Every structure is written in C-alpha cells, then in structure tokens.
C-alpha cells in the first residue's frame, strides 16, 4: 500500500508541472495579448500597460516568467482584481459557500444516485429500471444551465417550492445543489446499475444465495462492495464537471461562492480573477483524483499488486 501511494504521488508530479505549464502558456504565451487577457475589454492607457507588463514580468524570457508564476502560486499569490482585492482573499471568503453547495450536490448524488442504481439493478428489466434508464439519458443530454432554468421556472416560479436566488437559509441550497448534482447523479445511477447487474451474475453471489443469506445481505454486503468500485472512481473524475457546473449553477441561482465570482468575472472580463480561480479548480481536480486513486487501492486490493 505504501509503495502504491508513493508511486501515485510521484506520478502526480509531472501532471502538476505539466498542468501549470499548460495553464501558464494558455494565459501568457498564447498569440493573444496577455495584458488583454488580464485587463478585459477596456483599452488601457500606455502607462498602466507598462506597469502591468512590469508587474507580470512580461518583458522577461518565458522561462523566467514561468518560474515567477510558479513561485507566486506556491506562495498563494494569484494576483488582484480591479478593486485591488487579492484574488486569494476573495477565494478564502467564497470557498466555504462553494464547498457547502458541492457537499449538498454530493449528498444528492450519493443518496439518490445509488438508490436508483441499486433498485434498478436488482430488478433489471422492470418498469422502474426502464424509468431510470430513460430519465438518466434525458438528464445527461440536457446541459446544466438548461436544467437550472427548468428548475427555477417550474419548482421556483410556478410551484413556489424553492427560492430561486440567494442563500438566506440552508434550504435555498437544495434546488441549486440538486441541479448541480443532476448530471453526475444520472451517471452514478447508471454506473451502479450496470456494475451491480454484472456482479450479480458472479459465482460468489450464487454461493451466498445458496447459503441461504437474505437478499439484503447478498446485495448489501457481498455485491455492493465490488459494485461501488467504479462508482468511486467516477466520483473523482466527476469533480471537474462539478466545479465547472458550479460556475453555471452559482451564476444562475445567485449563490455568492467561487462559481458566481468566476461567472461574473467572465462577464466583466476580469482576467486575473478568472485565471486565479480556474487555476485553483484545476489543482483541486488533480488533487482529488489523487485521493480517489488511493481510495481505489484501499477498496480493491487487486490494484495494489499490479
């Protein structure tokens, strides 16, 4: 186990370096004007441009620029927005809200996704199974922002069940959380179903049944253990979708987290904020995938001995 984790960590280093290099080149080395990327639509006076070139070391060679960029990242320096507030301060302030929303979404995914998947899987071919298959494919094809408006319009405006904007109470997290979760929820349900159906065909399941174990034990203890492995792996890769989904969902439901900050920064073209937050998201993503890889090994001993 220790060796496996060590190997994973070592493998993550080139990915981190590569990703930071890629982000760096996207922002600073693309043919577009980096000052424009940082400043937005409004033309800047030459003096300000010169100051910005100085501040972002744009006149240094690219390698030196990259070095300074990474040093800044390591020190938590992500630049400042137009009002002179450090992006890292904004992140500190907004992050808890996004984390809360993500946790609500994750809870929806885990509870409803798994439940739907399990019920569909043990009654393969039933009405409920078909219902799950049809609903999930429909949800997968509807983009998150469309789903958000659909939820806002029907559940919020027409039925008045949920507030459609803001975060006065924890209750207001429910609808956006559900919208954010919907896509992954559908995937979790499908994955759970498929892997449960596959595993239920195994010999050890027949043995467990032959021993006279109750169906609850056969499914809950013997089969679920193996069926959950692909689901857990999926949840790691899924974080990327959750983070970009948060930009859309928070923007639409007016939730003052990192997502809405990015959403507004895109609209007002505040490059430094966009770059800072998205960089953070990408690093989150890489980090969580690392955690999932390790979890994966803990769940499935076969992985460790490859």
């Amino acid at each position, binding site marked *: 186990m220790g060796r496996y984790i060590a190997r994973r960590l070592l493998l993550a280093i080139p990915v981190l370096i*590569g990703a930071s290099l*890629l982000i760096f080149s*996207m*922002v600073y080395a693309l043919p577009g*004007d980096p000052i424009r990327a940082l400043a937005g639509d409004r033309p800047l006076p030459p003096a300000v441009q010169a100051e910005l070139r100085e501040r972002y070391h744009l006149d240094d060679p690219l390698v030196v620029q990259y070095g300074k960029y990474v040093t800044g990242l390591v020190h938590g320096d992500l630049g400042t927005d137009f009002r002179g507030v450090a992006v890292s301060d904004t992140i500190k302030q907004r992050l808890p809200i996004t984390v809360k929303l993500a946790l609500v979404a994750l809870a929806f995914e885990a509870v409803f996704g798994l439940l739907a998947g399990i019920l569909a899987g043990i009654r393969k071919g039933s009405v409920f199974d078909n219902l799950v298959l049809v609903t999930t494919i429909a949800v997968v094809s509807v983009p998150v*922002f469309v789903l958000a408006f659909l939820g*806002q319009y029907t559940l919020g405006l027409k039925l008045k069940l949920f507030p459609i904007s803001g975060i006065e109470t924890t209750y207001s997290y429910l609808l956006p959380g559900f919208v954010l979760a919907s896509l992954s929820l559908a995937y979790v349900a499908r994955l759970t179903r498929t892997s449960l159906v596959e595993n239920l065909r195994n010999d050890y399941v027949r043995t467990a049944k032959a021993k006279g174990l109750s169906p609850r034990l056969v499914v809950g203890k013997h089969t679920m253990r193996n069926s959950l492995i692909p689901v857990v792996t999926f949840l790691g890769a899924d974080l990327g979708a959750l983070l970009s989904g948060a930009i859309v969902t928070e923007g639409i439901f007016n939730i003052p987290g990192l997502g809405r900050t990015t959403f507004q920064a895109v609209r007002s073209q505040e490059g430094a904020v966009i770059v800072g937050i998205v960089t953070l998201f990408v690093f989150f993503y*890489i980090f969580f995938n690392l955690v999932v890889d390790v979890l994966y090994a803990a769940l499935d001993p076969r992985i460790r001995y490859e």
Partner: protein
Amino acid sequence: MSSSPITGRNQDRDSNVEPGDDARLDEHVDPLGLDEHGAGNDSPGEVKTAAAVTAQTGVTTVQASLLSDAWRQLRRNKVFLVASLILLVLVVMAVFPQAFTRVDPRACNLSLSKRPPSASAWFGNDLQGCDYYSNVIYGARVSMLIGVVVVGASLVLGVVLGAIAGFYGGWFDTLVARITDIAYGIPTILGSILILNAFKERSLWTVALALVALGWMTILRLLRSSVISVKDSDYVQAARALGANDRRMIMTHILPNALAPVFVYSTIAVGGIIAAEATLSFLGIGLQLPAISWGLQISQGQSLLRTAPHLLLFPSLFLSVTVLCFILLGDALRDALDPKLR
C-alpha cells in the same frame, strides 16, 4: 466466428505467429484471421493483395455480412431510426436554414419585443423583436458545425497519433501517454475558459480550437489501446510474414479492426461538444453577438425568465434534443457494433 473485422476483438489470440515459422504460417496466412473459411490453405510464400484474397476466398461476403448484420440490427432499432431522422432534419436545417423559414433572423421590429408565440411567429419574438423561430432555426448551423469540426479534428489527431503510439510503442508512446495524462488533468470547460479568455475576438474557430485542445485525448487513448489489442493478432502477424510494410499493416489490417469503439465514442462526443459550446457561449466566453447560437440565445433570455420564458424554452429544447439524439445514436451504434452485447 472467432474474430470480428469490425471490432477487432480477436478471441483466439493464443497462438503467436513467429515470422518464419512455416508450419504455423501455413495455417494463418489469412490476413483477416478467418481461416475457417478456407483462406488459410494458400501457400505461405505467395504474397497477395487484400483484394485478391478477398475475391478468391469470398471474404467480402463475410465482411459484408458482418456490416450488414450491424445494419440489420440498426434498421430494426426504433430509437436509432428516430434519432437519425431528427439529426438528418437538423443537418438540413444547418445547411439550408432557408428551407425552414423565409424570415431573416436579423430583420427585427422593436415594437414586437418579447411577444409570446403566435400563429404569425411560431416561437414568438425576442427582446429586439426578431422572429425567434428563424433565429432558433439558424442556430442549428453553429452547433452542428462546431460538433463536426471539433470531433473531426480530434479524430484526425487521435487516430494518427494513437495508431503510431500503439503500433510502435517505445519512447513516442511514453511521451504521448504523459502528455495525455497532463491534458486529462484539466477539465474541458475550465480549460476552455482559460484559453478563450486570451482572445478578444472569438469566432467559431477559436472556440473549436479550445475544445479540440482539451478534447482529443479520449479518442487517442481508445484507439491506442485497441491498436495494441489487435496488433499481435494472428492475422496481423500473418500480414507481416507476407511482407506487408508497417503502413500497410496499420492502414489495411489494424485500423479497420480498431476503429469501432472510436466511432461509437465520437458519435456521443459530438453531443458533448455541442453542449460544451452552448455552455461557453452561455457563460459569455464562447461565441459573441451577432453570432446566432443556441447558447447565446439562452444567455440573452436568462434575465427574462419571468416575463418571456419562451425565449429560454425553444433554444433549450433544440439544444437538448440535438445532444440527446447524438447520445442515442452512439448507444445504438455501440449495441450494433459490439458483438459482446449481442
């Protein structure tokens, strides 16, 4: 049937033909690995073109029957028929929007602003009073074009690099694998925001570029792994023994057998790319006005949810149905092309 020319899942991979192993070779000269059909009885020294072998042994009919097998299954599949019919309509809509509406999408009359759907304007009018039906119709072009361009470019990139990496292995393979790992580390939408942020003027091609830059990896990985699983098959070894060069082996023997999963994925991916473009345009970092795109229309309509919900409804509906059709089409293709599921 022990192997399928469509999917390349060769089940009798137990025997590895060594070049020069004459006894073995005698049984395995058939480049398509279908020796139960008699192709294996040719003399080993005789080098033949695939066409000659095909003509002589009637492999054509076997191959055709496999393809027609898939086709027969698809033809019976109602979901496939409905999805392809809708997509056909959407393609025509993208190429000849004039066939669906005579109204110019940019001819607007402010006095009609936010009118709900009526007999004269089926989808109502937007904020500027433009005919919404013709706007939504014209929106199909951007979505279809970007889906096809991005997936097409990713296919070229992924198939060429994947085939070379999978076939030769070695340092090139390692390099490609590492680059793929890194690119996978960056989620598509987040990365696209970073790339597009650097452009002041963003056209369809800029958005396509960003989506290709972050979306080519899956095709490459799929192709690479299926090339690796096919390249040691008997029929590829046989082709090598017959003196086929690398290019010929890759082009005529390996690729046709390795492409099926790539095609299934690509079909579904078109839907994903269309949704991604709409999301970026919705966020305000994709296409820019006066471009006509469903994502932009939804973005414009979002503040009018209370007063003019039809402005959100119609582009959302078209967008979702398009994405859904590509997913269903890919699903049907997978069912038809994967003999394991039959």
